[in-house]
């Protein structure tokens, strides 16, 4: 029986060895990158290489052991891939920090945040033994998300920085929007599990598309209203686009209706167009996007294209193979260590390096979507699908922005940009994905005997 059951329900291999190997490989690459930065800048291996490399290696070993103990069936690739991306970000911040002039980059700070990120990852895995518990907190999560989004608007604790009001200052600066993102995805997943049957109902058929009924438009309009609110009140184009895109994609996953995607696109494009006409900070982004090389925009102090153009120059001088680590001038791009870390990497590693990084992101997302496919209940499917999509969508928005494919919106590059809130939130996101992948890949309980109506199970 057991042999037959095994052939009917294939046992997923745990792949612990592969995971450890890939993790060691990633740490090795990061240490090589450190060495390469030092060799490129002043001809010697930097003194901090061993401290940074082994520090990061130790952290990841902790994460690996936590994973092996508390989520043994989890996907073997997610952790190594995230480690690599996080590590390349660290190296780049270290490189930008060692510029001829002060620019705000701090690798020490970033590695501290990475350590805290691993702590959050561990805590999430320890506390959340069964992610389906989250479904009970659907509306709590929704309320929490909205409150977190609104926090920066409060007087006294809300802070406006670089033209966007998305920080709060409670002794140190926090970007609550990053955590709101997670809470809202949990809310969307729980809500859509309950309502997807209604939302999938077909109203009228127009050409090839089944339109939903007009009265079911409510939820979409509410989320649209919230994201337009963020756009107007906080001047944060990125989060607005991120949230709305996340909701629309989850609506699509839940109902399988293309019409929702079209309605979402039309609503957002319409909203953004009107906002662009009325509010100058949105309109500026559009002007710059259409003609970044224009001298008028390049020299404009606020909302100009200087930063974008510096990034494009960096990518251009990097070319196919890059200038080599430590040999370019990535620090010339304003905020190269945060929003513009992607062009900074592009200058030194070239298109080849960027494509490898994008492949890493793609593989993380692929593992997430695979988890969604393998998950057994609709809530996990939606949550895993939503979290992976929102990660991919965020990478697309910021990288599309800095390469001038779409209008530039300020968002962090997940795991790479310097910034504590985003790093912590993304490590929690990864912990959730890992938790779900553990549940999805865990083999079903095997029957010990096969006779009779009562079956004895072994977990």
């Amino acid at each position: 029986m057991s042999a037959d059951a095994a052939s009917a329900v294939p046992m997923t291999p745990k792949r612990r060895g592969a995971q450890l190997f890939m993790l060691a490989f990633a740490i090795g690459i990061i240490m090589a990158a450190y060495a390469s930065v030092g060799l490129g800048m002043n001809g010697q291996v930097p003194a901090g290489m061993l401290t940074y490399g082994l520090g990061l290696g130790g952290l990841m070993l902790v994460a690996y052991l936590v994973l092996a103990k508390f989520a043994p069936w989890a996907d073997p690739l997610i952790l190594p891939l995230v480690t690599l991306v996080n590590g390349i970000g660290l190296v780049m911040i270290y490189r930008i920090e060692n510029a001829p002039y002060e620019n705000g980059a701090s690798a020490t700070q970033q590695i501290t945040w990475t350590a805290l990120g691993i702590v959050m990852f561990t805590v999430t895995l320890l506390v959340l033994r069964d992610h389906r518990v989250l479904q009970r907190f659907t509306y709590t999560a929704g309320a929490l998300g909205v409150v977190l989004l609104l926090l920066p608007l409060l007087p006294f604790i809300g802070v406006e920085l670089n033209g966007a009001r998305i920080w709060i200052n409670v002794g140190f600066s926090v970007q609550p929007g990053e955590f709101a993102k997670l809470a809202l995805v949990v809310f969307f997943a729980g809500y859509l599990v309950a309502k997807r049957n209604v939302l999938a109902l077909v109203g009228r058929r127009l050409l090839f598309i089944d339109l939903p009924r007009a009265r079911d438009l409510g939820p979409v309009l509410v989320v649209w209203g919230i994201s337009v609110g963020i756009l107007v009140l906080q001047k944060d184009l990125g989060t607005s686009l991120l949230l709305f895109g996340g909701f629309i994609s989850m609506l699509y996953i839940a109902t399988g209706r293309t019409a929702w995607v079209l309605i979402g696109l039309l609503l957002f494009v319409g909203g953004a167009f009107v906002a662009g006409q009325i509010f100058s900070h949105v309109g500026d982004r559009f002007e710059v996007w259409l003609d970044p090389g224009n001298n008028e925009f390049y020299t404009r102090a606020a909302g100009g294209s200087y930063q974008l153009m510096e990034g494009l120059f960096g990518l251009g001088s990097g070319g196919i193979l890059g200038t080599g680590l430590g040999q370019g001038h990535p620090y010339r791009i304003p905020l190269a260590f945060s929003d513009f870390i992607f062009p900074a990497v592009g200058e030194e590693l070239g298109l080849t390096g960027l494509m490898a990084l994008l492949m890493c992101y793609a593989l993380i997302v692929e593992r997430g979507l695979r988890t969604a496919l393998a998950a057994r209940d609709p809530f996990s499917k939606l949550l895993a699908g939503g979290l992976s999509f929102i990660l991919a969508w965020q990478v697309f928005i910021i990288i599309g922005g800095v390469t001038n494919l779409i209008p530039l919106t300020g968002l962090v590059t997940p795991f790479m940009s310097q910034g504590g809130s985003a790093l912590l939130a993304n490590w929690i996101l990864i912990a959730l994905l890992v938790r779900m992948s553990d549940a999805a890949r865990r083999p079903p309980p095997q029957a010990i005997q096969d006779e009779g109506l009562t079956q004895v199970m072994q977990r």
Partner: protein
Amino acid sequence: MSELTLLLIRLAFLAVLWFFVIAAVGVIRTDLFGARPASAAPKPTQPARSASKPKRGEPRQMIVTGGPLQGTVINLTDAPITIGRAPDSTLVLADDYASSRHARLYPQNGQWIVEDLGSTNGTYLDRTKITRPTPVPLGVPIRIGKTVIELRK
């Protein structure tokens, strides 16, 4: 540090970076291209097949031909197949019209028998609701909720 050394370091680093990506894809190869056809699969089945070779006209596969799981194929062995919403069933249905332990298929004297396990909405062989264990001919649809399954050679 000479130009040439730096160039070599640069190229080597990019190569290693890509090697990592390729290694990562290698880990999940089974996901992307299906299970490895070599070594593992044929060896154990070869002796098993010669021992209990299915006779002509006996079904070898159960195929889901309708419903959300359409396209799922389960190879028939000597083991019974359980169908239902319970996560330990051989075929797990996510269907509100199916019971947790809905039906069972088992071989008996070279025939496959379908038996309803006291489900709420019943199991249908072709158009008739079955009330007792019934032999399943090849290619006749069994309906459970929204799911339709068939035995094939």
